[in-house]
């Protein structure tokens, strides 16, 4: 399972397969009074403790939560077994079952990412819209109330990122340049665990589309449908395993309502498991559902037939941050319209691309895409050398779309893999999924965002507009440096 994590996470010791019981040393407070007792192993393998009074007590199993793992600089793979128990198809099915049996007030929401949809559409060999509608049929049949598309929340992410970038550029937001994209949880996790103090200020504070969807579902939708955030069970379908880690961050947990913004993350490939677990459902044979356009709508409907026609979306199967920010910054900061396609300069490998804007012979905007671990290294290295030099040098880049996976999110670790596993086939699969991403898509230019009145309304009525104080509270987050473990017994040498 660990191979499904992004390569970045795997590098930080993630290829050491260990389970919490064997090697994970979560520092536990020692209960000194226990030391005088006897502990034995019963025939069933359980540990039993005999206190000094001769009383036998079954010992508790040490448990490690995903949060313990996220807060530990040791390993990440031990999170693997924790993930299985916390965020899996089995867990999702159990929740559906218990809701059906005893919690009639609960609402189940599934938010699907456009990249997952592309991968599934390619897998089943049908159009993206068909796939989406059949999947909605399936999800509703197992008890899901609403199915949304994270392209909806991604518009908020794009708008907030652009506002944030412009503010950084104008030095009205107390954060440095270059701004580094924050949508990739693998990258965030790596930055927090290994580059803490000096890289974190550069990372955009804007939440990822998944987490903005979480905020919208738990705090906007709940009000709208008149229920408590904790009554909504929110599942996302993501191209990426690392998204499970992101959903588990304590920053996205509400103490008052005791609820997470996203309760469960399923990877694209886990959707196939889900189909299997619910009676080996043949998705192709399912009806195409009618789509609800009353809330969080992301679909264009045919005026005459009322049938859904296209998804609203943006260019870029990795979220489109680069393009949207580049065009908007050019326009708003320098009054320049970028005509036609953006001209990319490809770096030493295809996962590093850059583009720049010159005004009067001076490079005023310099953007880059850095995908995959080696390119992350080079970006981090450049930031470090720039900050290290005492002279207040202009940063080499103003914005970098950093992603842990080569080829970006369309090639995420949770996507459906090529059967043979050969590199060539995998590359072909990425190309095909990329095509599916653009199928049935109505591409919105940067000026067309927000693409629906609903988004505008949510901004105006619920947050006082983009990048307002309210928006900063609701749509932005923070990062935490993780100290290296000082526990000698937990250090591998």
């Amino acid at each position, binding site marked *: 399972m660990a191979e499904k994590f992004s390569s970045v996470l795997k*590098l*930080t*010791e993630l*290829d050491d397969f260990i389970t919490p019981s064997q090697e994970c040393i979560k520092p536990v407070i020692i209960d000194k009074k226990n030391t005088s007792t006897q502990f034995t192993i019963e025939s069933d393998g359980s540990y039993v403790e005999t206190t000094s009074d001769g009383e036998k007590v079954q010992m508790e199993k040490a448990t490690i939560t995903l949060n313990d793992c996220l807060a530990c600089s040791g390993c990440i793979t031990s999170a693997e077994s924790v993930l299985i128990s916390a965020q899996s198809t089995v867990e999702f099915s159990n929740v559906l079952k218990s809701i059906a049996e005893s919690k009639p007030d609960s609402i189940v929401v599934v938010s699907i990412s456009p990249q997952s949809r592309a991968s599934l559409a390619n897998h089943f060999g049908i159009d993206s819209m068909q796939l989406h509608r059949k999947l909605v049929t399936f999800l509703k049949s197992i008890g899901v109330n609403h199915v949304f598309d994270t392209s909806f929340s991604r518009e908020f992410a794009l708008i907030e990122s652009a506002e944030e970038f412009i503010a950084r550029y104008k030095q009205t937001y107390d954060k440095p340049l270059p701004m580094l994209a924050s949508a990739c949880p693998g990258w965030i996790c790596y930055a927090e665990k*290994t580059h803490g103090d000096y890289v974190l200020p550069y990372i955009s504070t804007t939440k990822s589309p998944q987490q903005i969807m979480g905020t919208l579902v738990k705090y906007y939708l709940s009000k709208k449908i008149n229920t408590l955030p904790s009554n909504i069970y929110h599942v996302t379908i993501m191209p990426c395993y690392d998204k499970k880690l992101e959903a588990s961050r304590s920053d996205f947990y509400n103490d008052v309502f005791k609820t997470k913004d996203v309760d469960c993350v399923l990877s694209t490939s886990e959707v196939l498991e889900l189909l299997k677990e619910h009676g080996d459902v043949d998705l192709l044979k399912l009806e195409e559902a009618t789509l609800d356009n009353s809330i969080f709508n992301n679909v264009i409907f045919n005026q005459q037939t009322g049938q859904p026609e296209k998804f609203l979306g943006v260019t870029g199967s990795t979220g489109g941050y680069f393009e949207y920010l580049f065009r908007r910054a050019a326009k708003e900061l320098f009054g320049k319209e970028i005509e036609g396609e953006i001209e990319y300069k490809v770096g*030493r*490998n*295809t996962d590093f691309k850059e583009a720049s804007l010159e005004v009067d012979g001076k490079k005023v905007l310099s953007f880059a895409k850095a995908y995959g*671990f*080696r*390119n992350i*290294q*080079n970006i*981090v*290295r450049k930031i*470090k050398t720039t900050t290290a030099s005492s002279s207040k040098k202009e940063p080499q880049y103003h914005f970098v779309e950093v992603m842990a996976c080569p080829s970006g999110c369309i090639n995420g670790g949770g996507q459906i893999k090529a059967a043979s596993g050969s*590199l060539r086939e995998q590359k072909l699969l990425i190309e095909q999924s990329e095509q599916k991403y653009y199928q049935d898509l109505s591409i919105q230019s940067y000026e067309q965002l927000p693409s629906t009145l609903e988004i505008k309304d949510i901004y105006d009525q619920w947050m006082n507009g983009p990048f307002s104080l309210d928006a900063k509270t609701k749509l932005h987050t923070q990062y935490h440096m993780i100290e290296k473990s000082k526990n000698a017994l937990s250090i591998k040498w």
Partner: protein
Amino acid sequence: MDRIKEISIIRDGLPSKVWYLAWNPQGTLLASCGDDKSIQIWKQVDVVNDVDDQQQQQWVMAAKLDVHEKTVRRIAWSPDGKLIAAASFDASTSIWELSDDMNDNENNNNDSLEFNHISTLEGHQYEVKSVAWDHTGTLLATCSRDKSIWIWQMDEEKEFECLSISHGHGQDIKCVLWHPTEEILASASYDDTIKMWQDTDGDWESINTLVGHESTVWDISFNRAGDRLVSCSDDKSVILWALVKGDHSDPSQSSSSSSSSYQWKQSQIFESSHSRTIYSVDWSKDQYERIVSTGSDDSIVLYEKEVESNNNNNNNNNNNPDTTTKYKKSYQKLNAHNSDVNCIRWCPTRAGIMASCGDDSTIRIWKII
């Protein structure tokens, strides 16, 4: 007869454990490193007249480079002798450049040299164990206990960019070494194997795995043609490997990359060549092509070509590694150092001269006679 004669010794100014030494390509300088976290540069002052061995070589410290927070494990000179890369337990690799004023200094008969710290390469999670420049001097490889190999490219401004981060070894990687003429990298690991790596579509991937040692492989060295390799191990053996081209007999390899036509086969093994772990091995690039090994038993072992007696094999195809020249263990120098010997290296310019260093806090220069 004592075939390995000590002709000089450096005692003062060395770390208590000298982990590694490297001759500059001109054979005029020695760089050493160890547990004092610094790199020491040594310069030979009294040029020795080899005609009579009476005269002793003299080495003086020409520079001491200090930037690392922990032990410096290995160092490498660039092919032009102007740069030094140093791998440290502090998880970083530092790059040093010999100051241009060096020539003036030399003319002025000043023994000190100036090196500028021009770069630090970071990214490895744990100790960097080894560093190596390729034959062009533009690619740098590092390896670490984090089981990864990083390939860096140096541009004309001497800025470094990471080209590839490769995984393949299951354990700590002890050393990396470039092929003498091709863009092929060899690595040796705690997982008992040696791997060959090559650029495939921008990613460096393992193209061969050499299995034969039964414990950690500590050091490797190519012969000057680059078609043979020698390795030494914790299993106390030294193995000679030979490159066999165009061998498709192994079906497991045929499906992988095009480079699978390169196969490395074990051609000779010296079992129990030393009585304890063998840490270092080097294949001389001079006409004698001698091999030397050393390790934890404090001794130095010399291997030389067996006298050619090939009369029936002459017309045989040269694909069979068994027909390549056999080596014999020709001499063992016991108690060469007073403790573990960590490294031994032939002088690149003077045949029969080599230097070794060890836990007895000395560097010793030897001459084969």
